Every structure is written in structure tokens, then in C-alpha cells.
């Protein structure tokens, strides 16, 4: 019994440590006071105020656009990489695909910035952000797709060929339907990573284009206002929903890749 108690206590403490700060943000986003100090009363006016903030809306729109485009491209490329990793076990591809996953974000941010500016002489903006986001999401998709394939009986792909399917039809009729949950989970993961990425985006965004996390950061440089709480709450809700969806589509592959 005693052991059970301490396990419970440790578990609760962990959850509290993780979620109480988040809960505070959510709570204060509904607080009818300019100051994040004490509870005054319930209001939704901060959410209303968000709708009037043109800069914030523009940043949110940018973030959505970048997330959709980058995760779509990352999903296509990552799926192909995952299949290739599984089927041919190429010696160099794992480094190319998986390094961005393991690399410290700050390093990736700095090196991408140098690459875009010094090597390609690119004007920073939407394109550089997209390229950066694709770079770091692709690996996650590849890992999830590969884990999905690794859990399957190899002979079913031979069976498809044996029973008259060309390599392409083997892909469309057997391989693809079986890895779809992995692909969807990979897409949702990339979307989540993209929409709340700060560090890498900070380096490659330049001056023209700003994303939601960058905009939030510039807001709190002044003060943590209730609007920041409100927009953070919305972002949190979106992220949690996507993660929950990803887990639902491919619980076993996410666990394996974790």
C-alpha cells in the first residue's frame, strides 16, 4: 500500500509540474484584469481583442500556411525516405534524414541561416521558413513510417507480386493502405512541430515574415498581457488536439519511435 501511495504521489507531482503552469495560462486568459496578478472575474474579451489585432492575425495566418505546406511536403518526402530506409537499408540515408531530428535546434537554426544567406544568398522569408520546417519535420515522418513498416510481415509484399500485382499496384493496394496510419500520424506530428516552432524559425524568418510563436515572443518582450495568455491557450488547444489525433491514428508506431 505504501509503495502504491508514493507512486501515486510522484505521478501526481509530475502531472502538476507539467500542467499547472499551462492551467494558469488558460485560467488567466479568462481573467477580467489587465494584470496577471489575481483573479478578478470571468471574461472572454481578451479573445475578442485578439480578433482585432491585425499583426497577430497575420502571424497566425502565416503559421497555418507554413504548417500546412511544410508538413504536406515533409510527409511526402518523409514517407518516401521511411520506405527507402526500411526496404534498402541505405548506409547514408539514416544520417541525412535523422540528423535534423537529433540535432540541437539552435545549431540547426544557425546552420540553416548560414546556408541560406552565405551559400545560397537567399532573401529570408516564407521560402526559407518553409525549407527549414520541411528539413526538421521530414525525419519524424520517416521514423514513424519506418516503424510502421518494421512491424509488418515482409512476405505480404512478395505475396502481392506473386499474385499478379506490379510494383506500383503493390504499393497502391498493399503498402500504402497499410502505412496510411503512420503517414497521417507523421503529417500531424510535422504540423504540430511546424506551428509551434520558435528557435529555428527565429533564425531563418528574416524581417518580412513573422509566425505566431515569433509574434507571441515579441509581445511578451513588453509584458505578459492577457492577450498573450489567450493566444497561447488557443495554440495549446490546437497542438494538443493534433497530438491526440496522431496518437489515435498510430499509437504503436509513435510509441516505437519515441
Amino acid at each position, binding site marked *: 500500500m505504501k509503495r502504491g501511495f508514493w507512486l501515486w504521489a510522484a505521478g501526481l507531482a509530475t502531472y502538476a509540474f507539467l500542467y499547472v503552469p499551462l492551467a494558469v495560462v488558460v485560467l488567466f486568459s479568462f481573467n477580467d484584469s489587465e494584470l496577471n496578478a489575481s483573479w478578478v472575474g470571468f471574461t472572454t474579451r481578451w479573445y475578442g481583442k485578439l480578433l482585432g489585432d491585425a499583426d497577430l492575425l497575420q502571424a497566425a495566418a502565416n503559421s497555418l500556411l507554413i504548417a500546412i505546406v511544410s508538413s504536406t511536403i515533409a510527409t511526402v518526402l518523409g514517407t518516401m525516405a521511411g520506405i527507402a530506409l526500411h526496404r534498402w537499408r541505405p548506409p547514408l540515408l539514416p544520417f541525412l534524414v535523422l540528423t535534423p531530428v537529433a540535432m540541437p535546434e539552435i545549431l540547426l537554426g544557425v546552420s540553416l541561416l548560414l546556408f541560406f544567406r552565405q551559400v545560397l544568398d537567399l532573401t529570408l522569408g516564407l521560402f526559407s521558413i518553409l525549407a527549414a520546417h520541411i528539413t526538421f519535420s521530414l525525419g519524424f515522418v520517416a521514423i514513424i513510417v519506418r516503424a510502421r513498416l518494421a512491424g509488418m510481415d515482409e512476405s*505480404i509484399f512478395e505475396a*502481392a507480386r*506473386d*499474385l499478379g*500485382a506490379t510494383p506500383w*499496384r503493390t504499393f497502391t493496394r498493399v503498402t500504402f493502405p497499410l502505412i496510411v496510419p503512420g503517414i497521417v500520424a507523421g503529417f500531424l506530428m510535422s504540423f504540430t512541430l511546424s506551428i509551434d516552432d520558435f528557435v529555428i524559425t527565429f533564425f531563418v524568418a528574416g524581417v518580412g515574415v513573422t509566425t505566431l510563436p515569433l509574434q507571441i515572443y515579441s509581445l511578451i518582450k513588453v509584458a505578459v498581457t492577457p492577450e498573450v495568455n489567450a493566444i497561447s491557450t488557443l495554440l495549446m488547444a490546437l497542438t494538443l488536439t493534433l497530438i491526440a489525433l496522431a496518437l489515435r491514428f498510430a499509437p504503436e508506431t509513435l510509441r516505437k519511435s519515441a
Partner: protein
Amino acid sequence: MALLEIRNITRRFGSLEAVKDVTLDIEAGEFFTLLGPSGCGKTTILRMIAGFDAPDAGELYLDGRPLAGMPPEKRPVHTVFQSYALFPHLTVAGNIAFPLEMAGRSRDEIRRRTTETLALVHLEDKGDAFPHELSGGQKQRVALARGLVNKPRLLLLDEPLGALDAKLRERMQGELIALQREVGVTFVFVTHAQQEALALSHRIAVMNEGRIEQLDVPEALYSTPKNRFVADFIGTINLIAAAVVEASRHGLRLAAPGLGEIAAPVHGAVAVGSNGALAIRPEHLRISGHADRAGLKNHFAGAVVEYLFLGDVTVYKVRLDNGLLLEALATNAGPGRARFHEIGDRVSVEWRHDAGVFLPD
């Protein structure tokens, strides 16, 4: 012309020669078995027939046409995999319909043939089930149905009964024979289980280390093995070292060290003076309590060291006075009694002069 002609095929994996210069013909309508221990090259041959692997040398012809360069999906050859390899995202009916869809059959035909084939393997009520909802035996039947539905020229079966328990395996053996007779498709079966091979096949090729040791009908493989490997691999056999003293067309006279003279039948030419062994099956040996009869032709004295009572038969292990250990099978057909000799009993081991086969070294 044989349905499948295999001509001098060799397959190497690095320094290992998995298949060495194998030539064989498989006739239409046959139940043909490749039998051998694991690593003997039987599965490699199967994969070359299916098109998943290609020989380094030699040719395969199906209906007289060379198979070289033809991808698996173009070959009128289907495989039943050891793991069944059912598509987990398709229903039983979907799995069976798959080869028909790939062949571009009409919807009506697909529906009709799927239903027919489900009935053929007694799974009429399982069409909508998914593979994970089936038992091992049912998965096996779906795999068979899927392999047969588009009427391949050849159906390859890669140890398909390996994953089933003993009782079910016996039943599936019966069903396989009946199914093959009913559909008339040529079966090429791969197994390491010699009893399964004997029970199912019209002809068997016994393989060892990439070569065919003997190719024959089951009865001939069992009664007249050509060499020690085949004799040893198929069933149980006693080997009595001996040299040929006299050979005529009526029989052989052999001299066995420590035993004396043995009379044996002639199977093929053997030279006088050659060394070898008389291979004789346990059921051809008779044991009796008359140890004093030793000295008569093919009668030898010894003592029972062990017996195994198996119900219908009892297997006795007898050590002859020269130290040789023989295994003899006694059927328990007499009413009431099932045991005739105890451990330590002095007995005589006897066999007919036309039993066994002499295998020169």
C-alpha cells in the same frame, strides 16, 4: 514435355552454393515435393520458380517457355507462404479476390469465383472476416484459396503446414490431397518433414547441400534408398556395416564383421569386395524369444536394452552380441497382449533374405 523443366540451375550466395547444378522435370497435375533439411536449397529453388530469385547459371522453362527475366507478377505461378502472408487490411473475400482483380477479371467473375473458392475450402461464412479473426487452420485455407483462385499453372507451397499443431496438420494433409485432386493444379511442395512428404506426394526429390540425392515415388524412396543420406533422412533405418562376398542375380552374400554372413537382395549392380552397409527398416526385423536359433540364415542373438510402447506398435532396441544396436518394430495385433519381451531378455533378431538394401560406400 514436362510442365516445368529445371535445367542445370546453380545459385550462389557469396561463397555458399545454395543450389548446385539441379535438373528436374515437374509434370502437369503432379503433387511434387522438394524434401530436405533446412539449408538444403529447397526454398531457394521455390523462390527461383516464383521469380523472387534468379539462378546464376541454368534455365527454367514453364510450358516450354524460358522464365528468365519474367517478373513474379507475370508468371502463372502462385505461392502459399509459410507465414500465410494474408493482407491484414483486406477481408477473407478481399484476399481471395486480389489475384483476380490483378488479372483484370470482371466484377461478376470476381464475385462468382471468390464465392466458389470460399466454398472449396469450407469457409463460406468467413468471407467478411479479417485475417486476424481467423484460427491458424482457417488462415491456411484462405492462403490456399487465394493461391488457387486464379487457376495458376503451378502452386508453390513453402512449408505451409509448419505453423500448425500436430492434429491440425494431419487434417490439413488430408484436405491438401483432396484439394489438389479436385482442382487439378500442379503442386510443388517444400518441406523438411519426411512423413508429410511421404503422405502427400506423387514424387519426391530428396535434397541435401544443394543437390538432389534421389528423385522417386515415395514407396521407392522408402524401400530402396540410393544412399545413406536418403536412407537416414526418410524414416528410421538400421545400418549394418558389411562387405560383398558374392553377388549373383538371385541375391547378395554379405560378410558383416562380428556377425557373420548375411543374405540380402540385389538392387542394381554391386561389385564383389565392395564395402558398405545393409540398410534395413525396423518393421522388416522380427524378434523372437528363441535366442538359440542364432546361426540360422539371417538370425542373430542379442538382448533387449530398451523398448517404446506406442500403442499400435512397440519399438524394441536390441544389442546384438557383436555390440551392434538394432531397432525392431513389433505390431501389437494379438488380442490382449501388447508386450512380449522385457529389458534384458535374450532374443533372436531375424529378417528375410530379400529384406533391406545394400548401400555401397
